């Protein structure tokens, strides 16, 4: 169901009443892909999947969901205000990731709200790690990442050594549904909350507006008999034929 979408009186955020928050599509794929890599290890118990989210306390719900899917522990980088500067967000994430000695860091290729598709890449650069972005296939072989990236009308095969960062596109893995057992287990898994070290914001949201409405649609007819009229309108009115 699509909930009514409203801009809050501040003009720079969304009215969140009645909205339900969930893990975003791409982040869901990333969590699933991470769990599959762990499960493929000779000794899965020896590796750990950690989920990290930056945001207000509502992100804890998302982190619990990832843990109910199977992630081992979670970290919330607490930040209450709206933030859109990818560089500032990436700085805070890189500061957290730095000490973690992770072999592989996975991001969703973009968020659904701001859709900048920049944060993961900037974090990787700040960490000095190689990054492959927007991958739709992933294999780990002999200490190397082997991935596929979709381009416009083509694709690339890309490799880099571990440790590395990847950002995840569609097609990589369908996220599993948390089992009841998983949901119960997630309640006991550790979730650490600490303040986000967000840098200076140099990219600031001034206002949000609803997009201009398209003129109301027009049904020109029914069935194949309407085709000549459509072709005439495309030619004479829209001038696209």
């Amino acid at each position, binding site marked *: 169901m699509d909930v009514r979408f409203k*801009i809050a009186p501040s003009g720079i955020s969304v009215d969140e009443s009645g909205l339900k928050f969930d893990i975003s599509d791409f982040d869901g794929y990333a969590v699933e892909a991470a769990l599959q890599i762990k499960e493929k290890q000779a000794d899965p118990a020896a590796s750990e999947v950690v989920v990290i989210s930056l945001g207000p306390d509502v992100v804890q719900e998302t982190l619990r969901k990832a843990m109910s899917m199977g992630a081992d522990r979670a970290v919330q980088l607490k930040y209450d205000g709206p933030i*859109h500067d*990818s*560089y*500032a967000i990436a700085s805070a994430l890189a500061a957290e990731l730095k000490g973690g000695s992770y072999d592989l860091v996975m991001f969703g290729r973009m968020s*659904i709200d*701001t*859709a*900048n*598709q*920049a944060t993961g*890449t*900037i974090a*990787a*650069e700040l960490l000095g790690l*190689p990054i*492959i*972005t927007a991958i739709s296939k992933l294999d780990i072989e002999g200490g190397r990442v082997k991935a596929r*990236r*979709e*381009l*416009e*009308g*083509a*694709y*690339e*095969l*890309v*490799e*880099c*050594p571990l440790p590395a960062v990847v950002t995840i*596109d*569609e097609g990589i893995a369908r996220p599993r549904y948390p089992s009841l057992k998983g949901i119960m287990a997630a309640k006991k898994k550790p979730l650490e909350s600490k303040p986000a070290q967000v840098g200076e914001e*140099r*990219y*600031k*949201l*001034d*206002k*949000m*507006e609803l*997009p201009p409405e*398209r*003129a*109301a*649609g027009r*049904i*020109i*007819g*029914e*069935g*194949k008999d*309407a*085709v000549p009229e*459509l*072709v005439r309108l*495309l*030619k004479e009115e*829209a001038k*696209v034929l």
Partner: protein
Amino acid sequence: MANTNVFAFAESRGGELRRAALEAVTAARGVADSTGGQVHAMLAGAPGIGGLAAKLAACGADVVIVVESAGLANYNPEAVAATVAARLSSGAYRAAFFVASAQGRDLAPRVAAKCQLPIASDITEFTVSGDAVAVKHPGYTGKVIQSFTLRAATAIISLRPGAVLPKDNAKAGTVEAVAPAIDPSSARVVVTATVQSEGAKLDLGEAPVIISGGRGLKEAANFKLVEDLAAAFGNAAVGATRAVTDEGWRPHSDQIGQTGRLVSPQLYIACGISGAIQHLAGMRTSKTIVAINRDKEAPIFKIADYGIVGDVLEILPVLTAAVKEAKKGA
């Protein structure tokens, strides 16, 4: 003294210029005309890529920085990013334009990080003034238009594909050859192959007409009808809804919508598509929208300029024949 020159990254693939290159140069030209500076466009690729410089000059490049190396035959993200960043750090640019294609979305944030600059991503409108740049970006899957201010000596702007239409505005295009800032063979990230997808003749981002199919087509084989209509137009690409790509009827790369491609063609024909919000997010900025759907209550009809209610399988062959006829007369 504020910076006046403007940088544009000229995207290429397999030795061919991408339309994104001309969009970036055209955007840069507009800003340079207001700052009184020059447009410097960078072209990177295998030896010989410099031959494309004239096309950038035609769109307004005063200088074409040509970076040629055998190690740049495939896109080399680390070497290209390092070379662009080195140029921006030394060049006193007011703004640097990229286009948020698959390559541009990879490259621009790398450059921003290396230059320690903020980035404005997926931008549909921009105004460069004194010390600030005002930009617009559709957020929340196109449900809102967000206005931002970017404060930086050099504004890194990644444009939504199609936001700026390439315009002829011929300038000198003086070629300046530059070596890659790092040895391309030392890059950790290596593109081992670039493979053309089967059947992809015209890209969704570049096609003036898109014919898109949804679940109303009932089965994968019926996409032939969509392809036939695209062929009748001659300048059309084929897209699909997420339901269709999830079913495996079409590749994921064909998906138009919130999690797929965002397109704004001159003409969008939605065939058997109900118009879920996630699909509308990817195509609602199309100039003219046509919808063919059995259900007259389908949300797609609310945004379609022209709707036909009926069976898409019956209507498509008739429309294809009519378009062929119209093209013949044109």
